[in-house]
């Protein structure tokens, strides 16, 4: 029979044990602490555990029932979870206990997953860990991961900003800053889905072609911007104003079902647009014709149908001599003059 291999650990000087396992604890057969490693000494910040009972100094939390040397010896070689008692803040360790020839035991401890916090809390350095310990690599990883996550967060933020900018541009008429047809379609769809009553105002400029033809496109663009300003001033924050064609505009008024109020608004818009517009010493005069449809006039309001009807009312306004507004009524087909 082969002779059992005898450990040489007991002949290792304490300085050697300190280098191999800077977080070790040695206890005698009674469970009294006789020595411990330099990193543990650093954590104790001046307090001494020599002569204290292991089970008093540490709470051996798992496996359960570790309160005697006999119980600990039965669990040697297993992974232990333990905390240091009497510390200002919770100090958790992972541990491993092995019996010594004299009936005593040596426990080797490590910080486990809490290593980064322990290093910061106790200002530990490379020399507090054995060179074979991967604790420093773990700290490296924590820091590298934080830097990489920071870079990813920055990228995600920039992409999000770009996306919002692109969405904004996709919904905006670049000349006037009003919404465009795509935005109008979205607004009408969500109002219809939410069954919110609303009014749809369709406006076409009168005499605009003459401005373009006689004063040029720059003048025309200027006029369109002035019109956009009027529409912005005459509508509420919750209303949507869109340019949907060369000189065609649509305004949507959520919650508006009052014909009289709409007629007043339409009249005010026409009056303001009909004011002479000065541009580079020249004056131009335009006007506007308006057709209005109200969702409350329909059993099942359909945005396309309402746009067609508002358009019909608009052309009735044009035929009636321009510079006026009409409200469409789906039942009677009777034109009401505004």
């Amino acid at each position, binding site marked *: 029979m082969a002779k059992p291999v005898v450990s040489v650990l007991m002949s290792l000087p304490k300085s050697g044990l300190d280098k191999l396992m800077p977080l070790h604890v040695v206890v005698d057969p009674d469970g009294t602490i006789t020595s411990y490693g330099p990193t543990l000494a650093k954590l104790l910040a001046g307090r001494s555990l020599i002569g204290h009972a292991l089970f008093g100094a540490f709470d051996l939390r798992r496996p359960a029932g570790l309160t005697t040397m006999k119980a600990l010896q039965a669990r040697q070689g297993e992974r232990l979870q333990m905390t240091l008692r009497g510390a200002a803040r919770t100090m958790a360790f992972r541990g491993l206990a092995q019996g010594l020839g004299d009936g005593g035991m040596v426990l080797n401890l490590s910080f486990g997953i809490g290593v980064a916090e322990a290093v910061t809390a106790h200002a530990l350095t490379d020399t507090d860990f054995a060179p074979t310990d991967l604790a420093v690599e773990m700290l490296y990883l924590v820091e590298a991961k934080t*830097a990489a996550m920071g870079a990813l967060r920055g990228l995600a933020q920039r992409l999000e900003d770009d996306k919002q900018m692109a969405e904004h541009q996709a919904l905006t008429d670049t000349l006037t800053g009003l919404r465009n047809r795509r935005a109008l379609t979205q607004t009408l769809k969500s109002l219809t889905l939410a069954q919110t009553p609303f009014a749809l105002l369709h406006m076409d400029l009168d005499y605009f072609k003459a401005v373009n033809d006689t004063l040029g496109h720059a003048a025309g663009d200027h006029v369109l911007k002035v019109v956009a300003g009027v529409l912005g001033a005459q509508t509420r924050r919750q209303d949507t104003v869109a340019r949907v064609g060369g000189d065609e505009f649509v305004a949507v008024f959520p919650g508006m079902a009052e014909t009289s109020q709409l007629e007043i608004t339409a009249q005010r818009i026409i009056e303001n647009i009909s004011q002479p517009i000065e541009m580079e010493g020249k004056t131009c005069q335009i006007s506007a014709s308006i057709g209005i449809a109200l969702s409350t006039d329909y059993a099942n309001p359909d945005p396309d149908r309402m746009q067609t009807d508002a358009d019909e009312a608009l052309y009735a306004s044009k035929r009636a001599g321009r510079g006026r507004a009409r409200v469409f009524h789906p039942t009677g087909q009777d034109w009401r003059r505004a």
Partner: protein
Amino acid sequence: MHGLINRSIQCFLRDTYGAPVWEAIARQAGVEPSGFEAMLTYDDRLTDLVIDAGAALLRRSRETLLEDLGQYLVSHETLTSLRRLLRFSGLNFVDFVNSLEELPARGRLVLPNLDMPELELCELGPGQFTLRCAAPLQGVGHILVGLLRAMADDYGALVMLECLGVEGGAEVVSIQIADQALYEARPFNLGMAV
């Protein structure tokens, strides 16, 4: 090439020579002035185009420009994270040099698709080393010389560094450590600065 590398080159050119110079280099290299995103991957050729455009516009050799880049990566105040990550590799400069071969693995631990040069360290005698680096980027040895010079400063070591040229597909750098602790090292705490 990993965006992190391209982005580093962009930041180096911008921080050292100013935003207008970077924009001129970007235009010449056919890159958007907004430059590179650190977490995306780009065509390898773009990296060379930017370095060549930079060298041409600044009237500097590619070699000295790359050496300055290496130094910038470690020593510039806006980039403290790389200096810290490198300091995790060793207690002192000799320790650091001895762990250089681990560097590619350390990089890939965090960014698995990071293009890192393959490094092979050979100890010729006490404090005397040659480092062979194989990478697709021509002039990688000069980046390493700049980086090692800055790290030696960080550790307070006195060193002599030189690019010996290309040998068997790898660029060879000579490292001679005259005194590994001539000056006081810059402070380094394991715990992250909060």
